[in-house]
């Protein structure tokens, strides 16, 4: 690991000032991704700004019936908060599908969003990687690519964003609040992460020095018809090959409102507003779900090892929509898929 200087930020202003002044500085909170990347010499920050003492660790109701998760609320705290469990069980379920209890105790809401979009080539400084070293090439496209993306890829990068929490936040239309050298702003989840294009080294739309202060969930009635279905190579503690977050508002047998996001298939949580519109006002039947899945995957592109993901995603979308419509969400403890 490289040597670095360390400072404990006493205020958001101080943290932002320090980060804006030094492009080689990084914020650190839970550290579960950054420390790992530092141990592999993938990240080599000259300075770490410890933000864990900032007052960003609360969950607060908002005036409009939603709530704000402070950036330092841990994954464990968010998943087990009674308000999250009652009003946004999709978020709780997705968080509990990810990582391990030890990591969820350390990992924070802001850090979860800022974990790197990545693959095993990114993690290996002995190989080229456009994300790690721009312009060196993407060995994944012609190498081992079982875990890689099938949607929104570019010739420069086919890595996936591994967060489960972010997939639920995308479906729930969360808003990321940030503070920076130019003040505060709010970024919709759909605009927070970016596709690789020809700049795969940039994962998000954050500007230099900006810090996440909170993630806001708008008021919504998705507490009954939801599911987070995660499919992976082992039943626990592995990244998704494909995951599906679904939140529906049902009016009898008719879908009044539908949200759907995919994980494990793209450089960011994948949403398709057109597909969601195809569900609105429709009966919850398998034929319609299959048509929606086909629409979402219309431009999917498989590589040598991951072409199976296209069919897996199609089936997972249909299954997840069925689970959500029936009000029988996937259990994250009992792994049987109903």
């Amino acid at each position, binding site marked *: 690991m490289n040597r670095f*200087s360390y400072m404990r930020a006493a205020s958001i202003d101080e943290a932002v000032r320090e980060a804006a002044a030094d492009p080689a500085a990084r914020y650190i909170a839970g550290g579960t991704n950054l420390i790992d990347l530092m141990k592999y010499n993938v990240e080599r920050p000259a300075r770490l700004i410890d933000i864990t003492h900032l007052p960003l660790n609360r969950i607060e109701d908002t005036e409009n019936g939603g709530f704000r998760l402070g950036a330092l609320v841990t994954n464990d705290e968010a998943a087990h908060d009674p308000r999250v469990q009652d009003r946004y069980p999709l978020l709780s379920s997705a968080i509990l599908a990810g990582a391990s209890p030890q990591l969820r105790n*350390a990992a924070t809401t802001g850090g979860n969003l800022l974990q790197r979009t990545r693959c095993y080539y990114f993690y290996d400084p002995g190989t080229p990687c456009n994300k790690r070293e721009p312009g060196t090439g993407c060995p994944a496209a012609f190498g081992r690519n079982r875990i890689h993306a099938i949607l929104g890829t570019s010739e420069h990068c086919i890595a996936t964003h591994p967060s489960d929490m972010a997939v639920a936040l995308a479906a729930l239309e969360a808003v990321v609040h940030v503070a920076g050298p130019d003040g505060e702003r709010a970024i919709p989840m759909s605009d927070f992460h970016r596709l690789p294009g020809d700049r795969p080294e940039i994962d998000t739309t954050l500007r230099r020095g900006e810090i996440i202060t909170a993630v806001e969930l708008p008021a919504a009635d998705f507490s009954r018809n939801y599911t987070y279905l995660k499919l992976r190579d082992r039943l*626990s503690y592995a990244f998704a090959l494909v995951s599906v977050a679904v939140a529906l508002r049902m009016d009898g047998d008719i879908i009044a409102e539908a949200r759907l996001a995919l994980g494990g298939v793209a450089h960011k949580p994948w949403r398709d507003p057109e597909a969601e519109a195809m569900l609105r006002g429709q009966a919850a039947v398998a034929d319609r779900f299959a048509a929606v899945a086909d629409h979402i995957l219309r431009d999917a592109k498989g590589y040598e090892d991951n072409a199976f993901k296209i069919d897996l995603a199609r089936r997972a979308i249909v299954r997840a929509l069925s689970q959500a419509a029936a009000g029988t969400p996937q259990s994250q403890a009992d792994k049987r898929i109903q």
Partner: protein
Amino acid sequence: MSGGQKGAAALPERIPITLTINGKALRIEVLPWTVLLDLLRDHLGLTGTKKGCDHGQCGACTVIVDGKRINSCMAFAVMKDGASITTIEGLASGGVLHPLQQAFIDHDAFQCGYCTPGQICSGVALIEEGRAQTRDEIRELMSGNLCRCGAYTNIVDAIEQVIGSKAEAKS
């Protein structure tokens, strides 16, 4: 920038921190990049906590920090200033094993033993969290601890025994 960072030959800056480890308060100076696991093992001689993968994937380094189990390999010691830490060395009291340590012996819940300190610290925290009732839930909530000998069935048995005896004591 602080004084310790000036010039190539400058000594690295050590930062004073206070930790309470297994009930004992300790004031030490650490380098910013010293990882909690390495502090415990290499600087404090608490070698019960094991280094397995060193990347947060195996759970051998699990310790309990302020009541929460974490991977000590994925934490900088300097960031734990003021924390209270329990390691495997701190579980027995007055020569009596922690009930989960005893249950691991009763159920033959280890073979080589390398993952065991992490398994037990993780299990102790799991029992305190009180969220696991069924074997499925125990397995899921122990998924951050790998055992390459494959003693999983007996580990679940041991944890189930302690959860069961706690529930009995309450009723």
